[in-house]
């Protein structure tokens, strides 16, 4: 049995009843930390609600997908002052007046390819708000693009973890960015230096949470704390995708209420490595054993070895318990020490994608679409277009599941039918030819063709996932003070 005591900002208490009844025993140390963003472009209003009503000490913000760094690196190459996620400007402007009053610290990876410039923006905003003396921690050094030759010279191969390919020379000249998912070391260092906010580039998503948890609890990477750090990794994993553990993307969607004004997740973490996942009272969404489970199985491979730069968590050891409405206790987490290698995402230029859509109305919508498919295949052959891959999908039929989707009965008299025609090519012109040929179908194909939306050819950055020895990556922490 557990006593749940409503938290105050500075001390949140939850302790076993038997223990709390013992006279004079100190209450367990705890910390409230929340997730304010899961991706570039996530909702801002739930983060505002968290800041105002969450009784929090920290909010973490993840803005980076696997290849966002490559996009940001390209932007930085054109303008050395850019290359960060500019959402940080609006986010900081909106949140800082609240967080600075309440003493909430924000940890954000919006620095992307340029944490220094992102932090400069934060300093500018803090200055406008009159927050003199505020300290902004900056974490850099996750990019290994500049050191790859050096590391290879020592005999390290950047083997592709997806394909097994070892010959990185094939893509060497096309590399746009190479970033290691670094651990919490530098975030902790910034917090020790008194940072009120920390801006990073690529760190592992859950490190945004592991850092502050380790710092506040006084845990380190020694064997004494292995299970506790694994607990921090697990808690970070549960909340890092904001709504995705709070009834967003849920199998229980029929009973998830008001997720249009969602409550993002809060973890109440205890010094024994247990946590309660919850959300602001009255907010939309749902936190229960199923929604937390949905995120525990999400984007995980071997669940007994969830490899992260701060530690390895064993999700098969933990226990979930509902303590009440929107309160789920996570306990029993075991783990192993942090690995000796870091994951690296290398992004490299890899041709173009061209795309066109076309739609036909009743009567004979499906027959017209099938005729149009044949037209485009014949036309590509006739013109001798060079395509690496061609894909033709029928809207509402096989666009998501391809060949594995069963074809519907031929007797259905469709109201409308659309085609999505897309091709991967080596050059921009070849990709644009696909878009152009789909427009020719408008005039040369069956009657009733609706145009849809034109798509410009898009450059492809492909992913080469690999590893690097941890020792070869040298992250750095620094502090900018608002003067």
């Amino acid at each position, binding site marked *: 049995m557990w006593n749940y005591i409503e938290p105050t900002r500075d001390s949140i208490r939850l302790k076993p009843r038997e223990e709390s009844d013992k006279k004079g025993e100190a209450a367990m140390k705890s910390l409230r930390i929340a997730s304010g963003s899961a991706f570039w472009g996530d909702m801002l209003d739930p983060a505002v609600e968290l800041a105002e009503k969450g009784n929090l000490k920290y909010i973490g913000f993840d803005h980076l997908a696997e290849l966002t760094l490559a996009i940001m690196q390209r932007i930085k190459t054109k303008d050395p002052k850019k290359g960060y996620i500019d959402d940080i400007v609006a986010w900081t402007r909106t949140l800082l007046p609240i967080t600075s009053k309440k003493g909430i610290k924000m940890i954000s990876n919006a620095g992307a390819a340029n944490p220094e410039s992102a932090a400069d923006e934060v300093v500018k905003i803090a200055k406008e708000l009159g927050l003199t003396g505020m300290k902004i921690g900056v974490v850099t050094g996750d990019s290994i693009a500049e050191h790859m030759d050096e590391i290879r010279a020592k005999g390290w191969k950047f083997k592709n973890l*997806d*394909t097994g390919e070892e010959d990185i020379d094939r893509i060497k000249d096309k590399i746009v960015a190479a970033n290691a998912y670094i651990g919490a070391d530098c975030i902790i260092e910034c917090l020790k230096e008194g940072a009120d906010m920390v801006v990073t580039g690529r760190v592992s998503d859950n490190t945004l949470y592991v850092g502050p948890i380790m710092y506040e609890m006084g845990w380190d990477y020694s064997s004494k704390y292995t299970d506790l750090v694994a607990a921090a990794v697990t808690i970070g994993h549960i909340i890092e995708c904001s709504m995705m553990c709070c009834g967003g993307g849920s*199998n229980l969607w029929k009973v998830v209420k008001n997720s249009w004004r969602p409550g993002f997740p809060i973890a109440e973490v205890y010094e024994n490595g247990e946590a309660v996942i919850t959300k602001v009272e009255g907010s939309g969404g749902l936190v*229960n054993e199923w929604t937390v489970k949905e995120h525990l199985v999400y984007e995980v491979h071997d669940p007994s070895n969830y490899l992260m730069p701060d530690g390895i968590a064993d999700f098969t050891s933990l226990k979930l318990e509902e303590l009440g409405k929107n309160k789920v206790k996570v306990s029993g987490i075991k783990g192993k020490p942090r690995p000796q290698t870091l994951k690296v995402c290398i992004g490299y230029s*890899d041709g173009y994608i061209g795309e066109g859509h076309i739609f036909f109305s009743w009567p004979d919508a499906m027959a017209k679409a099938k005729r149009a498919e044949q037209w485009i295949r014949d036309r590509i052959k006739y013109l001798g277009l060079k395509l690496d891959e061609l894909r033709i999908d029928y809207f509402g039929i096989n666009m998501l599941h391809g060949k594995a989707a069963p074809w519907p009965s031929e007797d259905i008299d469709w109201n409308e039918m659309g085609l999505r025609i897309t091709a991967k090519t080596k050059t921009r012109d070849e990709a644009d030819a696909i878009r152009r040929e789909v427009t020719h179908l408008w005039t040369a194909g069956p009657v009733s063709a609706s145009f849809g939306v034109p798509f410009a050819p898009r450059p492809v950055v492909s992913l080469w996932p690999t590893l690097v020895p941890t020792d070869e990556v040298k992250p750095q922490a620094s502090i900018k003070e608002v003067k």
Partner: protein
Amino acid sequence: MKPKVYLKELAFARSGDKGDISNIGLMAKNAESYQVIKKEVTPERVKKYFKGMVKGDVKIYSMDNLNALEIVLHNALGGGATRTLRLDQTGKSMCGLLQRMEIEVDEDVVNRAREAEEQILSRYESW
């Protein structure tokens, strides 16, 4: 003979991506269904079912503590989110496809799984 039913009768599912790897968390609706999916959902069967979409290995890990399976499909997303021609670039819909796989299972087991789902939904309806 046991009737054939869709996996969705026994389990919830959610899928995600890392590079070209798709993973599907398959969460049984009750303990009994977990034992069934643990036995019936095999790597060979899953690979065959995905009809050429999964070019690499299929690995399945069990999570007995959560009544869930973690199904990992290698080389399954057309080269990964940024280079694939698939509209579902990150494979978020792979869970629905797996839930449509048919398995043979006793009618009683299916009925109890349906009851379990009804109970789950009615429990949270009032939250």
